[in-house]
């Protein structure tokens, strides 16, 4: 009989307006899955299989891809990583019906962190709201303490979409608590034109800018910041506004730009050595061509690692064979990635450990600020833990509202 296989669907966007972000993510996934097969012979002997489906970042294509891939492999799809907030929203209701978990790592619906309502959705290590709180924490350190935030002016420059607006409520709560003056400046899709937004910013003269951008909006924003001579070290993008594709087109102007992240960038980690060795036959140049080490490539790798570790966790309970989505969900919910595991897998220093629970599908993992020096990213802060006391109540309130609207009875996690 055929060897056991574990199937991972991949919703990718290698074409269209967001391809510059989609390509490295997809490559990261691909390389990590391939690495597992080549280096370890799969996950505990179970071969990893995967198939790409092009979504072009469009919701209708996302749904089509989901339907197309969900039944593949001997036991169906293990889990979905939609890589688009819009598609994630669409898949959330379907997940519980089809019994396939969704792993939306650092995007998607924030309140899905409440595992009692969103049994099938996981969004570790942190959400937009957690991120926003961590960024404010960072700003407070820069200002010299929380008390110094009072009276400071902070601008949230965001993509005018559900995704871009996610952080707004949290920021508003934080503004109230710490007394800083928050201005929300939206930019319409696609964001090629931001002249007037930046003139507004120039007038406001903010102490800090936090940006939730996406695609071409990021590059233009970084250029425009230079145009008004805004100091780059007061300008922080979220983790979707801090990839190589965002800074490279801006050239020298992008030097000193900051962004958040929850994993390291660059190809100096153990896992990269393995990838270059096993997949690129030691050819570092070819690896570079395929974006190995870029921020979003690493995100793909990290995400694939979380996914496969969830399967490994589940295998411990259900045996080393092809697992169903339902079994993988159990694995996700009991996922506990320790520092030890990370070291073993070659992620030392790249990711923080994380432990998912039935109640908390997010874990509020720490966030770090990285800085672009014109050639590469490097860490520019210590790890910042989000403010649980502020974020969690918001999450629970929103999850409760969702549960009510959709006749869901939250499960009991005790």
């Amino acid at each position, binding site marked *: 009989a055929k060897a056991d296989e574990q199937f991972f669907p991949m919703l990718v966007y290698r074409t269209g307006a967001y391809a510059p972000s989609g390509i490295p993510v997809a490559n990261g996934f691909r390389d990590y899955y391939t690495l597992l097969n080549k280096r370890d012979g799969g996950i505990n002997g179970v071969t990893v299989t995967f198939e790409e489906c092009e979504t072009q970042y469009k919701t209708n294509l996302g749904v089509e891809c989901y339907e197309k891939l969900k039944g593949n492999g001997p036991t169906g799809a293990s889990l979905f990583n939609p890589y688009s907030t819009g598609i994630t929203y669409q898949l959330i209701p379907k997940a519980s019906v089809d019994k396939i978990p969704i792993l939306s790592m650092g995007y998607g619906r924030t309140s899905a962190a409440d595992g009692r309502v969103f049994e099938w959705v996981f969004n570790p290590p942190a959400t937009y709201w957690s991120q926003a709180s961590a960024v404010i924490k960072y700003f407070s350190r820069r200002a010299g303490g929380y008390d110094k935030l009072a009276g400071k002016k902070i601008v949230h420059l965001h993509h005018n979409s559900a995704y871009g607006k996610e952080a707004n409520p949290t920021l508003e709560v934080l503004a109230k608590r710490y007394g800083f003056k928050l201005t929300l400046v939206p930019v319409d899709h696609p964001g090629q034109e931001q002249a*007037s937004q930046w003139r507004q910013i120039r007038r406001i003269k903010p102490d800090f800018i936090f940006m939730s951008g996406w695609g071409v909006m990021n590059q233009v924003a970084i250029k425009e910041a230079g145009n008004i001579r805004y100091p780059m070290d007061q300008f922080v993008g979220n983790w979707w506004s801090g990839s190589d594709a965002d800074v490279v087109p801006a050239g020298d102007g992008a030097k000193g730009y900051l962004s958040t992240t929850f994993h390291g960038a660059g190809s100096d980690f153990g896992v990269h050595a393995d990838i270059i060795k096993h997949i690129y036959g030691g050819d570092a140049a070819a690896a570079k061509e395929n974006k190995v080490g870029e921020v979003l490539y690493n995100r793909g790798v990290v995400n694939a690692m979380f996914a496969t570790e969830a399967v490994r966790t589940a295998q411990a309970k259900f045996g080393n064979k092809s697992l169903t989505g339902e079994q993988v969900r159990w694995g996700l919910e009991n996922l506990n990635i320790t520092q030890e595991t990370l070291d073993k897998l070659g992620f030392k220093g790249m990711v923080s450990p994380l432990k998912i629970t039935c109640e908390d599908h997010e874990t509020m993992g720490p966030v770090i600020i990285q800085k672009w020096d014109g050639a590469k990213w490097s860490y520019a802060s210590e790890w910042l833990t989000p403010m649980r006391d502020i974020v969690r109540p918001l999450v629970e309130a929103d999850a409760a509202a969702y549960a009510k609207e959709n006749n869901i009875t939250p499960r009991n996690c005790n």
Partner: protein
Amino acid sequence: MEFLESILVTPFIEIWESPYYFIELVLVGLSTGVLYSLVALGFVLIFKASGMFNFAQGAMVLFAALTLVGLMEHGLPLWAALILSVATMVGLAFLVERFMLRHLVNQEGLILFMATIGLNFILEGTGQLMWGSDVKRLEIGIPDQPFDILGGKVLLNTFDVTAAFIGALLVITLAVFFQKTPMGRALRAVADDHQAALSVGIPLKTIWIAVWTIAGIVALVAGIVWGAKSGVQFSLSLIALKALPVLILGGFTSVPGAIVGGLIIGVGEKVAEGFWGPALGGAIENWFAYMLALAFLVFRPQGLFGEKIIERV
């Protein structure tokens, strides 16, 4: 009531109180407006020459820019890459005439429009197939430095000013070319009635190739300017959407219309976003441009400079 005040009164007070901010917005509006005109111009040329609303203009911008950077990435110097890109656009014009236009003589506007949608897909596919979908940096040596005017109260940028200058130059050249040469007349004749134009011996083929070539070159320039701003990538094709209100405001058939329309839209949307945006929640630029165009149309249904729509029985 308060809301009404915030949109009907406050912005005007603010304009009065912060004149430099206003001037700055007007200036960036003008420089953006010229760039809109540049894209709109491509539409106007083709519409004038064939009555065809070229949906693929955005894709042509993308395609031209991709070709240019693609060639440069392969190590060609800028001048060589430019020549080859122009040659590519000429080739495209030939192909479009040979395989598309020639077979669609005398069809209705909507059908021609649809055909350009097909072309749009082809160009987007081919461009990305040949050169990849990644974002590419385009460095063509236009200096990009902010500088102060009016005693430091207003900040401008050398790149924007240069780009606006290039755009204006191109637009004026073309305006003169089409107003002063016999070709201009032939173009307008073709737009009115393909069959009658054929019957008096106007060679549609030559005209179309010429016009598509020029439109291709305009697209290349637009692609260079916008590409240098935001990197060359797929989103470039979306700026065609920004050219639509310009086109409609200026009138589909008018080169000067494309210029004036571009400036009005550019200034209008920047000022609106800057003063009205905050009250309305921001990101109003897009619909504002269309509403502005619409407001003009109600008074001049053919656009500011468009040819009067002839209604006779």
